[in-house]
């Protein structure tokens, strides 16, 4: 491929042209342009069915067929739009494909190309011959270029603080940080207290409550717990890792600053003191700004594409032809 087609400046320029044309086209509609006609005939439907069958091994259902046809119509409209905007003339991917086709057809061997292996010339000749019209790969590629053009905005749009904040708030599942607690626990070992575990725990719990024993002192009244008795501020998943699911599920809702339990784990029983609890929160914007900005931009692109597709469809009358 020619060096110039790979040069970033070329792509930049090309993109600029596409954006401008796309924008011109977007802003040109005043509802009075003539409605054009796109026909979907039985042979087209048959072809779509056949493609589906080749991949899926069965014929499409009525709903699937309807979806296939609508997809095809959208692609076709995009392809025709791209054609009007001459997107095929300078796209290196389209050119590449067309040259391969020329080669396959043996059409690259005429005198002119022998002397002048200029790929641009070859590409232009392919387009002149209309090779781009019938090639499914080229059509798909052009529809894709058109989609990208429609998703972009001609003018870079600022994203305000408020828009970022709104985005974070409307996606709580993604940006929510779960609740945390900090706890101490007095441990009673199943290994060491086989027969008396439950009784020991109840007795010790009564004593801790009656005598208001501080956690630092209290843990000395139980058994040694090798992973530690005073846990740092933890999410539930940290507690699961250290003490298992059963324990972690039971302690998140325990009251603060009093002795609770006995809470079972697979190691034995625990008397638990919750020091403090930090409620779950939406992460502050400064922690998630980059992710949120990407999200806003993706939503806007989808919106721009949807609006433009709607406009495009309105300019065409779709005729479903029966046999």
């Amino acid at each position, binding site marked *: 491929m020619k060096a110039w087609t790979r040069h970033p400046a070329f792509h930049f320029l090309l993109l600029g042209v596409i954006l401008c044309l796309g924008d011109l086209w977007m802003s040109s509609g005043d509802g009075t342009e003539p409605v054009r006609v796109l026909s979907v005939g039985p042979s087209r439907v048959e072809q779509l069915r056949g493609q589906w069958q080749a991949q899926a091994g069965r014929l499409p259902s009525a709903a699937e067929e309807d979806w296939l046809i609508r997809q095809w119509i959208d692609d076709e409209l995009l392809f025709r739009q791209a054609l009007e905007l001459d997107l095929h003339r300078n796209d290196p991917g389209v050119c590449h494909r067309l040259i391969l086709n020329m080669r396959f057809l043996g059409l690259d061997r005429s005198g002119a190309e022998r002397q002048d292996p200029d790929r641009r010339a070859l590409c232009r000749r392919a387009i002149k011959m209309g090779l781009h019209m019938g090639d499914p790969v080229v059509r798909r*590629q052009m529809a894709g270029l058109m989609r990208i053009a429609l998703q972009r905005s001609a003018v870079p749009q600022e994203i305000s603080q408020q828009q970022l904040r709104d985005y974070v708030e409307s996606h709580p599942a993604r940006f929510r940080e779960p609740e945390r607690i900090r706890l101490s626990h007095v441990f009673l070992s199943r290994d060491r207290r086989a027969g008396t575990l439950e009784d020991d725990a109840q007795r010790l719990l009564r004593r801790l409550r009656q005598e208001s024993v501080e956690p630092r002192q209290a843990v000395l009244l139980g058994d040694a717990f*090798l992973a530690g008795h005073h846990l740092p501020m933890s999410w539930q998943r940290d507690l699961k890792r250290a003490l298992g699911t059963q324990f972690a599920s039971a302690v998140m809702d325990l009251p603060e600053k009093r002795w609770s339990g006995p809470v079972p784990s697979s190691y034995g029983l625990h008397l638990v003191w919750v020091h403090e609890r930090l409620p779950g929160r939406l992460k502050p914007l400064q922690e998630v700004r980059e*992710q949120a900005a990407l999200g806003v931009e993706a939503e806007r692109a989808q919106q721009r594409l949807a609006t433009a597709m709607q406009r495009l469809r309105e300019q065409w009358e779709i005729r479903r032809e029966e046999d």
Partner: protein
Amino acid sequence: MALLATALAQECEGRGYSPTKNVYWGDLHTHTAFSFDAVTIGTRTTPRDAYQFAKGAAIGLPPYDQAGQPLRTTQLMRPLDFLAVTDHSEYFGEVRACLTCADPGVSPDECQNFQYSPLVCKALRQTVMNLNNPDGRNIAGALWGSKLFQRVPNRFPFTCGVQVGRSRADDIDVVDCPSLEASVWSEVKTIARDAYQPCEFTSFVAYEWTGTPQGNNWHRNVIFRNESVPGLPISYFESPQGEGGPVKLWRLLERECLEDTPGCDVLAIPHNSNIGLGLFPVPKTAEEAQTQIRFEPLAEIHQTKGNSECRWGVGTTDEECQFELLSRKQLFGNPVEGPTNYQDPSQSPMEAQQQGFELTAETGDTYNYFLRESLKAGLYLGQGLGINPYKTGFVGGTDTHNSTPGSTEEVGFEGQHGLEDNDIPKRLSLATSSGSDPAPSQAFLENNPGGLTAVWAEENTRDSIFDSLTGKETYATSGIRPVVRFFGGWDYPLDMCDQPDFAQMGYQSGVPMGSDLGARPAGDPSPRFAVMAMKDPDSELDARLQRIQVVKGWIDSQGVLHEQVFDVDSDPTEGPFPAHEDYVDLATCEAKPDTPGKDMLCTVWQDPQFDPSQSAFYYARVLQNPTCRWSTYQCIQLEQTEPENNCRQWLATPANADTAPGVIVGYTIQERAWTSAIWYEPK
């Protein structure tokens, strides 16, 4: 002391940071549809799906129905804390080129009509399109994989780069693979960035280097500290065996990462020495040894394709060295021919050399075949070179080809290889055992769900976890999640296990797993090792711990290598231990009542035969009580629907019985953990 000095990062104060470190669970070995050998067995999920799965989301597994919906799904019972997706870098560009004809908008269906269709691409597309055909063969996987067996492979000439015409004017650049490869690599980075949630979940930019010269699995997972990485991954094509293989990989990583990319840091983790026949190059100089240990401080000891700690009869008579072994010693084929094929375990490398045996990469199968052997060989090489090149810590991984990191549970094991092991008969290798043909191999029956890596780190961030990886403060497990601490020092109190601050004392008076013992103080003490293990708090069937062992390897003044395994804490307190059948009801896989075993084991052990003039290493191995192997659960499941099925008998049939004594897939296993070692070197 060491602890406080390294506690630099505190990004996560109040959000998990702990000066005495937390254990974090992860998988450093995962393949997705970006890998040529995963996409050709029906895997459609990407690194993005793998990260979601690691965080707890469900994932689809092949086969897929005609509408593109997966017929199987799976989900982790417990999410992971970190993950490196390690797709094979060798065909990043080619896979993308062949499956999309270089255009992301084009379906494979349209590619079928792609007039210019190199055969290898065609093979790939046909393989992928025919996956649901029972007669379909993975032509592409075999064809593409075979390149990586060559000493100096070249890329398929007609897939990437230029197809040479009859004259220069006829040349056509077919597909611009480097730029496709760069775009895949950039996607790998972007996906890892999206998945990273400091303090909560760590993702690593990574890939697998897939050198397989002559069928030896010399693969390495290349893990980067952050997103400052070279523009393209360095694959086996750029560093083939004929040009040094792993040695060239390190050289290129040194240049392209450490020297040319600001902020770049990297390590390579070799895996499957069990089918590698000499996984580690043998350095000739101290400088080479230094480079080696710089880039490869860790090795993967356990994964779906077997265990690499040790093999009974290969340098050891340790009876626990019969765990999840494969009956072959290369990636494909080359069945094990019995222990006599290997070095006499009592013979030292020095004696062997006197008899004409040269320790080289080619003959390395004796000393490189299993990691315990390579740790021992490292003591020997270290004496000659002044630097021990094989001072490697341990990690574990799945090596899933289903985008399912951390899916290591025996119960409900779905296989790790797409459509090759997607149902019980395939997983039990029953498909190949029927009819008159004898089973060619028990490949999938011998596989296991794989292992996990545990990392002790201050917080869940890339820097903190990467520091712990390079510092080898890691342990590997066969898939379970017990909490294990292992410290070495000279003056730990013998009642340390009863102290409330075990970890703090461990760091203050000594070193953690993966380190060198500090200088020996006056008074000629023997080293002490403080080791504790808490059973997996969510273990299947509430399995308890049976024992902690310390494995010691050392080299004597004659250069003879030795090893000894000590049971240091156990229940019952002394062996012999009950037979596996006494723990498990083999008809149901239920645990039997009132078996021995502890929720926690802990001791301070002192080496009773320490000789300060001898280099040595010590690592801890923790054994869980016996439980059913995955294959037994699935055989029971099969018997319920097909009462006449003979899978039970099949499970008790040794693989290659006449050539590989000792290799047998048992009904039960003892899940386990291996800590990185602590080394002692005489001053």
